[in-house]
C-alpha cells in the first residue's frame, strides 16, 4: 500500500513536471531554460563536490592527506 502511494505520488510529480515542461517549453523558452539550467548547475556542482571526497579518499590511500 505504501509502495503504491509512493508510486502514485511520484507519478503525479512526474506528470506535473512534464506538464510544466510542455507549457514553459512552448510559451516560455527561457523559463524552461532556467528550470533545466538550474537543475543542471545544482547537480553538476554537487557531483563536483562529491568527486572531491573521492579524490580525497584516493589521496588518503596513497598516504597523502589533502585535508
Amino acid at each position, binding site marked *: 500500500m505504501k509502495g503504491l502511494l509512493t508510486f502514485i505520488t511520484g507519478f503525479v510529480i512526474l506528470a506535473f513536471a512534464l506538464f510544466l515542461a510542455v507549457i514553459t517549453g512552448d510559451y516560455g523558452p527561457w523559463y524552461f531554460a*532556467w528550470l533545466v539550467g538550474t537543475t543542471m548547475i*545544482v547537480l553538476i556542482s554537487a557531483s563536483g*563536490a562529491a*568527486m*572531491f*571526497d573521492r579524490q580525497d579518499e584516493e589521496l588518503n590511500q596513497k598516504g597523502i592527506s589533502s*585535508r
Partner: protein
Amino acid sequence: MDMLINPTVVELSRLQFALTALYHFLFVPLTLGLTFILATMETVYVVTGKQIYKEMTQFWGKLFAINFALGVATGLTMEFEFGTNWSMYSHFVGDIFGTPLAIEGLMAFFMESTFVGVMFFGWDRMSPKAHLVVTYLVALGSNLSALWILIANGFMQDPRGGTFDPNTMRMQFTSFVGLIFNPDAQAKFVHTSIAGFVTGSMFVMAVSAYYLLTKKRRDIALRSFRLAAIFGVISTVGVITLGDALGYIDAHAQPTKLAAMEAIWETNPHTVSASWNLIAFPSRTEQKNVFEIGIPYVLTPLLTHSEDTVIPGIKNLEQDAKPHIENGIKAMIALKAYNADHNDTAALATFKQYEKDMGYGFLAKEFAPDQDLAKVNASNLPSVLDKTAKATIPNVWVEFWAFRLMVAAGFFMLVLFAFAAYYSLKNEIEKHPLFLKIALWSVPLPWIACEFGWITAENGRQPWTVYGWLPTFVSASSHSVSYMIFSLIGFVLLYSTFIAAELYLMFKYARLGPQESHHHGEEPAAGGGMAGKPAFAKSSMNRS
C-alpha cells in the same frame, strides 16, 4: 490647465528611487544565489551522509541570514515608493503592474519568509530529507520572488498584456499570458537569477579563498571552493548567454536602449563591416563619439545574430520618432476632447487611430508652448518635434559605460571561475596563493556587475517609465522639494546605519569562520550564535 511636475522633484524622486533600489539590490542577488548553493551543499549531505556538508550548509547559512534580513527590510521601501513617489505611474499602470507584485507576496515572499525560519531552526526537528525540501523551498521562493518582480519590470520595458483604455484613462490588464510570457521578462528573470548564482558563487569562493590563505578549516574551505567554482563557472556562462539574449530582445523592443548601449550615432548600411565600439566617449551635444576604438566586423553578428540586419543609429532613431510624436500630439488632443465629452465619437476615433503613439504625446508636453499641446501649430511644430525627438534617447554616456563595466566584470569572473574550477579539480588550488588572493579581492565584482546591470536596464529605459507609453517626468507625484529632502535625508541616515551594521556582522562572522572541529562526525558547536538571524525568520516559532 495641465501642469508639469516640478522638474527638481522629478529628479529627486528618481534619485531616491535609484538609491533605494540599488541599495535593495545589494542584498537580493546574494539571496538568489546563496540559497541554491546552500541547497546544493545540503543535497550532497543528504545523498552522501557526510556530516561535513551539513556543517558547511549551516556555516554558509549563517552568513546568508545576515544578508537576508536587510533584503527583506529594504524591499518594503520599494513597495511603498511606487505609491509615495510615483503616483501617476501607479495609477496609470497599477491595474497591470500591481498584480505581479501582489502575486509575488502571495506566492513567493510568504513562502520564503516562512520556510527560512524552519531552515535555520528546524535541523533537529525533521528528517534530513524533509529539511532538504525546506531549503529548496527557500531557494525556489526567493527566485520566484525575483520572477514576479521581473515580470512587473518586463512590463515597464516592453509593455505586453495590457492596453490603454480611454474610458478609465489608464492601462488595463488584458492578457495574463501576455504579461508573464513577455520575452523581456523571461530573459531578464533568467539573467538576474543566474547573476545571483554568480554572486553567491563568488561570495563563497572568495571567503573560502580567505580561509585557505589563513589556513582555517581547510576541510570546509576546499569543499566550498570546489563547489562554488563549478557553480560559478556554469552560471557565468549562463549569465553571459542570457545577457546576449536580452540584448537581442532589446534590439526589437527598445532600439533606443541598444543604440545607446553601443554608442551608435549613425546607421551603418554596411552591416558586415560595421564596427563595434570597445571604447567610446559619447557626446550628447555633438551627437557623436569624440573618441572611439572600434572592432570592425563584430557589431552586426554580435547584436543581431545575423549578417544583414541594419542597426539604426541614434540620429536615425530620433528622425524615426518624429512621426510618432506628431501622431502622439494628435492622440493626446483627441483624448482630452473625448475625456471632456464622452459622446464625442469623432475624437474617440481620432484617438484610436493614433493610440499607439500617445506616449510620445505625453513626452511632447514638456516642449509644447506653455506645456499645452493644443498650442502646437505649424510654425512651432518643427522645434517641438526636434526637442522631443532628442528627449527619446537615454543618456548615452551612462548607458555605454554602465554596460561595459558590467560586461567586463562578467568576463573577468568567467576567466576567474574557469581557473578556479581547473585548479580545484586538479586539487592543487593551495599551490597558487596569488590566485587565491585574486579570488579574494574579486569579491566586489558580482555586486558591481549587478548594480551596473540595473543601471543599464533602467537608464536605458529612459525617458520612459513604461516604454513608449508613459514618460518618467509625467509619472512622479507632485510633492514639494522639502518633502523630498526630508525623505532623502531619512533614507540616507537609516540606510547608512544598516549597511554599517551589516558589514560589521558580515566581516565579523566571515573572519571568525566555521568553528574548529577536527572530527567530521561531530556536531558543530551550536552555530556560534545566530547573530544574523533574519528578522523574518521566526514567524513560525512558538516559544511559549
